[in-house]
């Protein structure tokens, strides 16, 4: 059980902003932390790690980490942290990166074999691919059997295929070790797949908090399905208009009439939804 109550003044892109978060997290749960950039997600994570100062109170399993301004240093918190840019030690081999955290060869080998990295154990990080580096970083974070695992957009630098694969690995590590986990993410499918709870921050405050489904599903009323996207272009073809919209990694075309097109501008955030028919779902690649 983790109780968080922190306040900190931040200098965001929109000027001064107060980070003010009150959160209780059950042991062994997987919480996804979402929100626009500059909403304070990373700062909250860094405060939990003890890397940033804040005022408030953090209690983890009856251990006080923060009381007023008095903070337990990161060295004494016993956490795991996965950085977006891996932050591996380039001078050490993969195995030594893990052993640097704790001299426990058995655990290191177990983690490396779970991530299919055992053959690379004696290589230096510079010779690994991005996905492999992030797996090493994940293994390293698990080396001190952390009470709390913090991940700051761990998969955002990877391609979609590698992302999927690592999501599976994160999930299986979470099941094996039962570590309470907080992950900053922007990817709804990732949050849905991994987390049991999604917390959305905006301007330093929690604006949404609930299970993944209730927070992430964006349909309203009688809509059967809907996607959020960004308008890339509006093209006039004879009497109709065609809108080009980017949804995640995909680009789609939607037909508009003139009155709809008038109101739209390139760069607008748009919702594409449909009511009238049931969408067809076809498998195009086997898992």
């Amino acid at each position, binding site marked *: 059980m983790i109780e968080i109550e922190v306040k900190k003044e931040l200098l965001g892109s929109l000027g001064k902003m107060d980070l003010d978060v009150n959160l209780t997290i059950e042991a062994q749960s997987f919480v996804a932390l979402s929100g626009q950039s500059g909403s304070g997600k990373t700062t909250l994570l860094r405060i939990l790690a003890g890397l940033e100062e804040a005022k408030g109170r953090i209690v983890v399993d009856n251990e006080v980490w923060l009381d007023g301004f008095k903070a337990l240093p990161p*060295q004494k918190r016993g956490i795991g942290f996965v950085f977006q840019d891996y932050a591996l*030690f380039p001078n050490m081999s993969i195995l030594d990166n893990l052993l640097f955290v704790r001299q426990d060869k058995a655990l290191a080998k177990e983690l490396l074999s779970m991530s299919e990295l055992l053959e690379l154990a004696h290589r230096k990080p510079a010779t690994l691919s991005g996905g492999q580096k992030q797996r090493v970083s994940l293994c390293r974070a698990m080396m001190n059997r952390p009470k709390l695992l913090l991940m700051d957009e761990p998969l955002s630098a990877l391609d979609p295929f590698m992302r999927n694969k690592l999501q599976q690995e994160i999930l299986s590590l979470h099941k094996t070790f039962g570590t309470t986990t907080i992950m900053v993410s922007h990817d709804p499918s990732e949050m849905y797949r991994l987390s049991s709870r999604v917390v959305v921050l905006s301007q330093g405050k929690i604006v949404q908090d609930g299970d993944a489904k209730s927070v992430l599903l964006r349909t309203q009323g009688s809509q059967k399905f809907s996607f959020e996207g960004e308008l890339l272009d509006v093209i006039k073809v004879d009497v109709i208009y065609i809108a080009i919209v980017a949804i995640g990694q995909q680009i789609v075309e939607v037909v508009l009439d003139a009155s709809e097109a008038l109101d739209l501008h390139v760069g607008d955030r748009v919702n594409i939804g449909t009511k009238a028919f049931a969408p067809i779902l076809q498998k195009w690649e086997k898992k």
Partner: protein
Amino acid sequence: MFEKVMALEFAPFLISFKLASITTLILFCISLFLAWSLAQSRSRFKPIFEAITALPIVLPPSVLGFYILYALSFHSPIGRFFQDVLGIKLVFNFTGLVVASCFYSLPFMVQPLQSGFEALPKNMLEASYIAGKSKIETLFFVALPNIKPALMSAIIITFAHTVGEFGVVLMVGGSIPGETKVASVAIYEMVEIMDYTSAHIYSGIMVFISFVVLLCVYIFNRQESHRLGGVV
């Protein structure tokens, strides 16, 4: 010509290199911690310390030499303390030269180390703290092994700079043969008595050694950056 070379006194070179080696060693031990704390510091007094550290670069060696000479001499409390209490005389001998060189070459050790430390990814150091390692452990096991090119530059440039020292050495050490007469001072004296042949030989040797040393640094740095492929 050959006899002339054989007849030359090489003691000044030996003193130069002995002085440079000892100075580099002492400065490395001091600067490691100084550069690490400067790189880590977020204090608003940091610029003051940085400015003090950089002073020897801009000050004329005669100014530096004059102050050091005064501070170490019997006229100042520091010099008197060393002489009366510890029985160590600090001017016009080799010990004094070492002390003076340490002041003179300090920025050449601190600055490359500090910028090396500052260029390290912050996350990498934080990952070490989260792994439970103290700042000192992080310095020796994570930071230092990953700034090898900066480390190499700092050591070599400090060494070379101390070998090339002239003004401060002349003021604090004088030119006592076999004790404080270093190569650069010896060349000055040769030119003064118009012994151009010896001055040529000495200067040629200095140019050659300096070139080889710098060449080694650049070759090493090139290989090192290829090997690491940049910091991960």
